[in-house]
């Protein structure tokens, strides 16, 4: 063995020296590469915030090839089911367009565009007022949109299950008595952050007037304490199904899409009838965003000013406001307007103008 090693040693002595030298070069080369990478990484990190802020919108476009477009949608959570169906149908007619939709609370979706500077082609919210409030640019801030189209109405109702307390007795005329019974647990969404939260409060006030029952709202809200509140009511659906709560204030569209039993509340109180706007405006509820007057629940959509794909967004909007979009919305429990109504109509894209009428003429 030892002789073998000796032979090996002498035979390869020269080579191993050369290798050592190679080893050294390799090492310094590696160090050079590492150092270079560190410098590049450092520069990239320093430069990154500015580059991102400047070209956030373009960044998404360059990610896709030239003829394929990704349409970016932000929409109210209640619109998820119909929008997914409409997006699928739209893609069949426009195979080069992929629709990427994100759903959540209306205010949160608006803030994706304003606060988080996310590029967006379509924004659809559950309360038309969110668009002028959040996107029109107040106090010298930048404007992100300057028109909106009201396309459908929804209604506030209460859903329940067979296990709910009083489920066997409740109907459209005694509901406010059952909901006020001791031990009933009612879920609702946060009136400070979510439209359905304050719309529930407005509906209860309208009910107080409509049924001539002073104190009705207070009695029912006693069964809907803070522990039964979430930032959006759909987060409480699990709790309703598990019997943690008995009733949940929610939009009629959600009630129908989830196949829940729900109360048939009259249009005088359920905020679904745009022609009763004056009557709804007689009530007002206090939130951290100030006192909010009752208004019909009108869903609205816009194409933001900085939309990366305005042409495709306009095509989508035409499809959505057309017969197929309207039918899908109706199937999912929304009240669809015979003709959508536009605010800021003079700023609408040309392709959308003949589809709508001005908001005021309603």
């Amino acid at each position, binding site marked *: 063995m030892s002789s073998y*090693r000796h032979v*090996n*040693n002498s035979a*390869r002595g020269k*080579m*191993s020296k050369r*290798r*050592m030298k190679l*080893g050294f070069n390799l*090492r310094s080369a*590696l*160090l050079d590469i*590492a150092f270079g*990478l*560190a410098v590049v*990484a450092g520069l990239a*990190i320093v430069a990154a*915030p500015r580059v991102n802020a400047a070209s956030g919108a373009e960044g998404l476009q360059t990610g896709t090839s030239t003829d394929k477009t990704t349409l970016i949608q932000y929409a109210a959570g209640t619109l998820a089911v119909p929008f997914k169906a409409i997006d699928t149908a739209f893609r069949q007619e426009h195979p080069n367009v992929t629709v990427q939709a994100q759903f959540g*609370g209306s*205010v*949160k979706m608006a*803030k994706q565009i304003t*606060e*988080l500077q996310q590029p967006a082609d379509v924004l659809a919210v559950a309360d038309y007022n969110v668009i002028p409030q959040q996107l029109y640019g107040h106090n010298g801030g930048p404007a992100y949109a300057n028109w909106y189209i009201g396309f459908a109405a929804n209604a506030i109702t209460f859903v329940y299950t067979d*296990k709910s307390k009083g489920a066997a007795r409740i109907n459209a005329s005694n509901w406010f008595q059952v909901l006020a019974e001791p031990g009933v*647990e009612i879920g609702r969404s*946060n009136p*400070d*952050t979510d439209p359905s939260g304050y719309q529930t409060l407005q509906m209860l006030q309208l009910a107080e007037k409509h049924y001539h029952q002073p104190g009705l709202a207070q009695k029912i809200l006693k069964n809907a*304490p*803070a*522990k*039964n*509140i*979430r*930032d959006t009511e759909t*987060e409480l659906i*699990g*709790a309703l199904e*598990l*019997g*943690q709560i008995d009733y949940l204030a929610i939009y009629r569209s959600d009630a129908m899409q989830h196949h829940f039993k729900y109360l048939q509340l009259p249009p005088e109180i359920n905020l679904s009838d745009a022609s009763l706007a004056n009557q709804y405006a007689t009530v007002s509820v206090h939130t*951290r*965003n100030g006192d909010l007057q009752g208004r019909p629940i009108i869903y609205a959509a816009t194409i933001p000013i900085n939309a990366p794909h305005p042409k495709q967004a306009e095509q989508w909007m035409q499809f959505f406001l057309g017969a197929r979009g309207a039918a899908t919305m109706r199937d999912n429990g929304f009240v669809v307007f015979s003709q959508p109504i536009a605010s800021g109509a003079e700023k609408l894209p040309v392709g959308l103008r003949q589809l709508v009428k001005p908001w005021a003429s309603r």
Partner: protein
Amino acid sequence: MGEPITAAAREGDLRRMLNRSALALLWFPGGLLLAFILLPLLRMASAQTWATLRSVAAMDDVRSSIWLSVRSAALTAVIAALLGTPLAYFLARSSGWFSRIIEAFVDLPLAVPHGVAGIALLFVFGRRGLIGAMLAPYGLEFWGTEAGIVIAMLFVSVPFMVNSARLGFAAVDPRLEKVARTLGAPPFEVFYRIGLPLAWRGIMTGVVLTYARAISEIGAVMILAYYPMTAPIKIYDVYLQTGLRESSAIAVLLLIVTLSTFLVMRAFIHANWRPDRP
């Protein structure tokens, strides 16, 4: 480097490589990772103004939410340590297939989406749930209460406790315990005098990780308790109500509080204090 070379030359090569450059090379990925962790947090912190930080720190609801988070996470870590350490000891001291299965179950909460974890807990701890219905007559409810916050935190964070403590116990030479047994020490004394002190760092690391995971949890907590608001929920709530400026200021406040509790705990780990010599 595939050519055959002499063992001696290779050894010399390797040693030189290791001695002179490996440390520098190791610092590169290490530094990159540190930058990856610190840069986003530092950028967020540096974007704050003192005025905003001071004004959110003065808000009562912000203070109470941070205090609630710290309190619940600390309680979670204590419960996790009390329940998790014995289990970790048994897992470290047994090698059968049964304990491997238990280890897999302990890891499960890490794989469950947190909203789903919250719903699963509601199944059991809700007012119609197995345990929830049982405890409600005694005034212990988990819906919208601190107890609910703690069980949600515990569920998602306890794997960190069990795993860290298990590794701590596994690193203790079992022969030490066997010697103690032959010298006449009863099993519990062996656990208390030998296993526990030697695995102390593993256990404390588990406590810190559990605390950290618990204080950051939002998904599971939100299902059981949105009110009273923990700090992560408060941050989200303020973001929805006012915007990024105030909510990120609260986030920085929470980071400062969390970091200081970390430092205290780390100091505690590295101190020489152990349960056998108080």
